[in-house]
C-alpha cells in the first residue's frame, strides 16, 4: 500500500480515537458517577483550603437525602450556575450551606437542587490542582 495512503489512514484513525475519547469520557463519567454533571472546576476561593481556585473535581450524584449529612461538601444549582459549599444545617427538605472561607451562611436551598458531592479519596475531596484554570479565566469576564 503506498506510504501516503497508510499515513492518511493512520491520521483518520488517530483523529477518530481522539474525538471518541473527548466525547465518551464525559458520558462515561456521567454514567459511572450517576450524575448529569460529573465534572466541575472551582472558580472561587470560598471553600479554601479544602478546595482551591483552579481545582478540578469529579462529582458523584446524590439522589436521596440519606446520602448527605452536615459537614458534607455538596454541589447545587442556583440562578448563577453551580455552587460548591459545605452543609451547615439540614431541616426537612431545606439545606443550608456555607463556604468554609465565608462568614455568612448561604440562602437555604431545597434538597432537589443538590446535584452531587465531590468524589472523595482518603477522606478528602479528590482534586486536581490547576486543571480547572481554563474555567477560571473564562469566567473572569462574567459578572
Amino acid at each position, binding site marked *: 500500500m503506498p506510504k501516503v495512503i497508510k499515513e492518511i489512514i493512520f491520521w483518520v484513525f488517530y483523529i477518530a480515537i481522539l474525538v471518541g475519547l473527548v466525547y465518551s469520557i464525559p458520558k462515561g463519567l456521567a454514567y459511572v458517577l450517576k450524575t448529569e454533571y460529573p465534572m466541575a472546576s472551582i472558580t472561587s*476561593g470560598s471553600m*479554601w*483550603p*479544602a478546595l*482551591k*481556585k483552579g481545582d478540578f473535581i469529579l462529582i458523584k450524584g446524590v439522589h436521596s437525602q440519606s446520602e448527605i449529612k452536615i459537614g458534607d461538601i455538596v454541589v447545587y444549582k442556583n440562578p448563577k450556575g453551580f455552587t460548591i459549599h459545605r452543609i451547615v444545617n439540614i431541616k426537612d427538605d431545606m439545606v443550608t450551606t456555607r463556604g*468554609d*472561607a*465565608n*462568614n455568612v451562611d448561604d440562602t437555604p436551598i431545597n434538597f432537589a437542587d443538590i446535584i452531587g458531592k465531590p468524589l472523595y479519596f482518603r477522606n478528602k475531596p479528590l482534586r486536581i490542582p490547576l486543571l480547572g484554570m481554563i474555567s477560571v479565566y473564562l469566567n473572569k469576564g462574567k459578572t
Partner: protein
Amino acid sequence: MNIIKKILIVICVIIVVFIVVQVVNAAKYKMLVNVKEGENIMGVNPLTESLDFGDLSRNNGMTRYVNLKSGGGTSVYVAVFNLGEISDLVKIDRNFFTLKPGEEVKLAYEIQIPPSAQVKKYSGWTIIFRLPKIF
C-alpha cells in the same frame, strides 16, 4: 555537524543563558504571615528584606508594598509569580504589565485571612521578573 545544527545549538544556548540571567536577576521576597487565634489581631513586623505581614487573626487583612522602578533606557515587562501556601491568600493589584523607562510603580500585596485559615505560619515566595521589552 552541519551548519544548521550549529546555528540551532547557538540559539538554544542564547535562550538558556537569557532564562538563567532573568531567573537570577528576578527580585525574590519571602512572604510570611502568622495567623493568630482571636479577633482583630494585627501585629506588624516590618522587615524590608521580606514581605512579612506579621501577626493577623482570621477575617483580618493587611497590605504591603513593593516599589518597582525601571532604571534603564528600555521598557521592561513585569511578571509576578507567587509560590507557596501563602499565595492562596495574597492578591496583587496588578500583574503582567509594562514599565516604561524611568517609571516607578508600587505593587500592592494584599493579604486577607479567611475564617477557614488554621492558626499557624503561612509562608511562600513572590518572584518578580523584569524582562527587557525589545519589541
